């Protein structure tokens, strides 16, 4: 591919045309004369000139320097350094800085519905709250029991029990183990499936023998009864391939929607009866991953409970600000809610005896069902019902001529479509249950659990310490892990849907399987760092190792790790430094054949250094043919962006991107580009108002750690992703306060999350901090 497309020109929106004037007295006057024409009298922007409002996060010193060098656009000599300083002070204080904006901005939280993820998580936990909730087990394999069979009786004798790590067995014409005859035997594998992500999972079962597969079912008395002629009630199988017809290998496929971070009951029953050969293999394809044999770490021998999964499709949430928000509604959304409510109502009715503990034939059954409905509503609404609500709901559905099951169905439909469920903060009532609701939303995207509701009911969510203690307790729940993983996936571009494809001639071996391993490598690295004791952000930036498996080590030509799977491989610390040099990210931020200093530079500016870039005024395609073929990529980029209007942004983007030029389009270290030595060094006007000489990735990482703008940027991104509100709403000093605490805690990411959750939960309940500017 000789052409690549990318965005060339970004604008910080400080451009403008001004007339030569006498030196004015004040910053305000300078602004009026030189800037207002393009930026508007209050920095609000002017159509067809600079449309975006004049707002940003640069410190004052940086802003002044920038104006001095660049403004007015095309005629920067019209105002000198001192005038630039004065006008910068005016702009900064009047409307540019976050503090200035906060003075005029609304202090009100955005009123939101549940996001799609929050809806699904809330439903799962709502139904899950009526039953046991076993802790998820280790992902070390399944419990396996091996039996000798005799004709119809598949379980004449259990011969041995063990744990199996992978579901791929080829017994051929042999016995599966000592004490079992090769012609007749059966095996059952039992435990749970650990789903790594939310979405559709595909399964493919291959066997010439008899197999039944059960996922996310509920235990029945006849489970495990493998007599051919038994009619004992078993849970419905996801795949029933019990009868084989001929000894050929059959492939049976199916798919199922699962929520990530949860464990699902899993069972596989297998038997061989006098067929010439025996084998069984279960492959799966998790969302966004490749086909693979189902194996540890996604299988656990521990038992677990059924999860209520809503599989109805929702229209996507608004993610225009970089994180999913529920600030708007549409008819399509309401229809999806209705379809989901029907799905859940049907599930509730079909599982009613288990959920409600009201058995068929119980004379108190209707009373118990009413009780159940009231509890269901209370948990869904995140606070106990008052008498009137209870009466309205119960009397509304348990009416003359409507059977109790149908009444329950109508109640569930009404509850899940109620604004009290769909809008977590609906209504004027703000109390302890509001705090519990916010904590649960922040940590889990879900409903408060019993402990939170009890704490709210007991008035124990009043002080910052009490709330922080709950937030800290909730951190250990796997749901937090998944939520946090979701943030990092987005932050590190792991959630991009486009295939990561490279030119197979230039990069042989860089195939789908390798990309899947790369993703896993980065995900695992982030997970280990975040959930290690120190949870240190600096390790994310500065680690001089990668987690690699054999395939990756081979491709990247580094020593093979010992121990199998993903292992730590130490690398030259001058070359690699944390996520910014992870080959997944380097490859993601590159073209089909060539690197892209621009994609890399934009990512570093926005995601790692807390910079704000406006979209480019126009997209220019990168035509390889336009350049002298002898040029390096760096030289081409310089040539392409040298125009002044480009350079307003590219003076930031380019040096950052150039510092990673030692990594090719698949993230391998290199010393030459186009047969010429690589120069990764540049000077960079940093966002704290200084100038930094960048020599390579380690200097980038240093910036991400030492720059206060960078740290605040990280805090802001995490805050928005987790709370789904703008931090400014929580007060002018919010980010600064959180950033300070983050730095003092030793850059502890989990403690930062606790601080964010606590702060958001108590919003409006605390007296405003008088020390705030």
């Amino acid at each position, binding site marked *: 591919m000789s052409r690549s497309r990318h965005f060339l020109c970004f604008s910080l929106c400080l451009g403008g045309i001004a007339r030569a004037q006498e030196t004015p007295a004040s910053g305000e006057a300078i602004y009026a004369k030189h800037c207002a024409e393009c930026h508007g009298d209050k920095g609000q922007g002017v159509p067809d000139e600079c449309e975006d409002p004049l707002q940003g996060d640069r410190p004052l010193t940086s802003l002044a320097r920038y104006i001095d060098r660049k403004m007015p656009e095309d005629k920067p000599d019209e105002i000198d350094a001192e005038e630039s300083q004065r006008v910068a002070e005016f702009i900064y204080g009047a409307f540019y800085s976050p503090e200035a904006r906060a003075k005029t901005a609304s202090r*009100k939280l955005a*009123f939101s*519905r549940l996001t799609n993820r929050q809806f699904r998580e809330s439903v799962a936990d709502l139904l899950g709250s009526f039953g046991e909730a076993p802790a998820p087990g280790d992902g070390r394999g399944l419990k396996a029991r091996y039996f000798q069979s005799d*004709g*119809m009786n598949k379980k004449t004798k259990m011969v041995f029990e063990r744990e199996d790590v992978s579901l791929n067995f080829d017994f051929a014409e042999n016995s599966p183990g000592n004490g079992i005859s090769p012609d007749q035997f059966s095996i059952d594998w039992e435990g749970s499936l650990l789903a790594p992500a939310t979405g559709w999972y595909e399964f493919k079962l291959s066997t010439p*023998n*008899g197999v039944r597969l059960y996922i996310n079912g509920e235990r029945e008395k*006849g489970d495990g009864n493998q007599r*051919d*002629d*038994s*009619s*004992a*009630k*078993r849970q419905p199988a996801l795949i*029933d391939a*019990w*009868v*084989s*017809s*001929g*000894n050929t290998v059959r492939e049976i496929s199916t798919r199922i929607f699962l929520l990530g971070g949860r464990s699902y009951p899993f069972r596989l029953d297998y*038997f*061989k*009866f*006098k*067929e010439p050969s025996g084998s069984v293999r279960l492959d799966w394809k998790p969302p966004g991953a490749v086909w693979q044999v189902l194996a540890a770490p996604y299988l656990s021998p521990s038992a677990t409970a059924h999860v209520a999964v809503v599989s109805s499709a929702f229209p996507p949430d608004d993610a225009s600000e970089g994180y999913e928000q529920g600030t*708007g*509604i*549409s*008819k399509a959304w*309401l*229809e999806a809610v*209705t*379809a989901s409510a*029907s799905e859940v*109502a049907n599930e509730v009715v079909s599982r009613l005896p288990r959920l409600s503990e009201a058995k*068929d034939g119980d004379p108190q059954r209707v009373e118990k069902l009413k009780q159940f409905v009231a509890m269901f509503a209370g948990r869904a609404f995140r606070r106990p019902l008052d008498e009137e609500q209870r009466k*309205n*709901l119960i009397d*509304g*559905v348990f009416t003359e001529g409507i*059977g109790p*099951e*149908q009444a329950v*169905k*109508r109640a569930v*439909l*009404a509850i899940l*479509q*109620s*604004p*009290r469920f769909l*809008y977590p903060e*609906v*209504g*004027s009532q703000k109390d302890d249950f509001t705090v519990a609701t916010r904590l649960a939303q922040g940590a889990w995207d879900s409903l408060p659990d019993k402990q939170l509701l009890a704490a709210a009911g007991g008035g124990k969510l009043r002080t910052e310490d009490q709330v922080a203690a709950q937030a800290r307790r909730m951190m250990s729940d796997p749901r937090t892990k998944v939520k946090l993983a979701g943030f990092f996936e987005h932050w590190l571009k792991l959630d991009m849907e486009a295939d990561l494809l490279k030119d197979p001639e230039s990069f042989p071996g860089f195939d789908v399987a390798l990309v899947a391993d790369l993703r896993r490598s980065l995900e695992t690295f982030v997970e280990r760092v975040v959930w290690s004791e120190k949870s240190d952000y600096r390790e994310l930036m500065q680690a001089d190792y990668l987690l690699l498996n054999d395939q990756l080590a081979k491709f990247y030509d580094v020593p093979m790790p010992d121990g199998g799977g993903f292992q730590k491989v130490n690398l030259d610390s001058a070359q690699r430094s944390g996520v910014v040099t992870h080959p997944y990210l380097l490859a993601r931020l590159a073209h089909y054949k060539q690197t892209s200093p621009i994609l890399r530079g934009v990512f570093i500016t926005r995601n790692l250094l807390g910079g704000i870039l406006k979209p480019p005024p126009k997209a220019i395609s990168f035509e390889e043919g336009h350049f002298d073929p002898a040029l390096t990529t760096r030289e081409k980029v310089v040539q392409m962006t040298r125009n002044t209007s480009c350079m307003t942004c590219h003076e930031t983007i380019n040096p950052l991107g150039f510092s990673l030029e030692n990594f090719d389009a698949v993230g391998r270290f290199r010393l030459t580009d186009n047969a010429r030595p690589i120069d990764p060094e540049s000077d960079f006007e940093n966002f704290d108002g200084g100038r930094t000489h960048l020599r390579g990735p380690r200097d980038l990482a240093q910036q991400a750690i030492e720059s206060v703008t960078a740290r605040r940027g990280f805090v802001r991104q995490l805050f928005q992703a987790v709370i789904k509100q703008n931090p400014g709403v929580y007060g002018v000093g919010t980010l600064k306060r959180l950033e300070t605490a983050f730095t003092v805690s030793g850059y502890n990411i989990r403690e930062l999350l606790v601080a964010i959750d606590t702060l958001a939960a108590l919003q409006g309940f605390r007296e405003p901090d008088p020390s705030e500017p």
Partner: protein
Amino acid sequence: MNVHTRRQFLRQLGLSAAALPFLPTLPSLAKSAADVKSQRIIFLFTPNGTIAPEFWPDETGPDFKLKRILTPLEAFKGRLMTLNGVCNKVRGDGDGHMRGISCLLTADELLPGNIQGGSDKPAGWARNISIDQEIRNFLQARPETATRFGSLELGVAVPNRADPWTREAYAGPNQPLAPLSDPYAMFDKLYGQIKDRENLGSVLDHVRDDLRTISAHVDPEEKALLDQHATFVREMEQDLQSAVTKNLLFPPPLLEPGVALDNDGIPKISTMQADLLVSAFANGMARVATLQYTSSVGQARMRWLDIHEEHHALSHEPDSNQEAQEKLVKINVWLCEQLAYLARKLDGIPEPGGEGTMLDNTTIVWTNELGKGNSHSLDNIPFVLVGGGLGFKTGQAMKFGGVTHNRLWLSIAHAFGHHLATFGHQRLSEGGALALS
């Protein structure tokens, strides 16, 4: 069309019933193709053979008397025919019971497999499509005879396991179809959309009230979103009301709630399934059905007849065991009563858009896995045809003297205009369709 019934039905559904945009609407069945005679067929399966002396009429031809087991069909004597001497001659792998049910409608050998019967070689699924599905596909391929489901597979107390002893219908080789034994699930399948609409309609009022109450106490930004929400709810209600249920000709049956789906529930389940089947036919949802009572080796304990042994166990008793024979006759009389109930039900409804009653356009084929239980014979299967769906010459007792049942299925296919040369096993199809007209 029965206008009176339809009006009543719409009234019954009231204002709350309607269609949602995201739910596929029920297909129109007002295809009043009066020029084409509707033809429907039901294969009714019962297990464990019959008691021949109490089943087969002694006479042949139109002048015959019904024996005890068939007495429940007395009212339909002129509209039925008994077919003695039709045999399931399919051999190969699998025991008699497996072949008895899985080769009944498929008329070919089972595939080799891993399911071990009493003594014979293990077997797998059928290797051929079943005749009901063959006819279904034929009808579905033509717009004038296509229906929403094509066929329905209903069961009464079919054991909860999938193997060659429990399946009679096959969509193709190696593709068994599971009969639905839960009348409530069958109701959902047929009418769930309507019920969902009713339920939704009834709760949207709540939702709107709730929105009103809350909106009264909130700030403008919040109110704006909630008002928008209320608008969408109102639109949804209007969608529900405007679609109404113009597609249904007959009301769904009212099922007794809370019937336990166990052995003792069988009489009620049987009635419910028959009601559902007839209403589905009346509403033009299908033209083909199988209704399967238990399975081969059926083990129902008909305590409601004061019989406490399992049906299959009783069927093993020798002919000399008078008590067992008497019980088996009673069991078969009861099964015949179920058939009679179905026939009466069909006969009680005028043919929608056509002549006569629905029974005049429907044939019920009573089948059995075996001829005789204690010998496990697949000969002389007690075939009875009731109703006028196929234009056969009813009102007679016929004797064929040992023909294959492949030929009976050919006759039935031909009656639908589907002129197959063979069905199932090639050699067993020799001789072609039986003359039944």
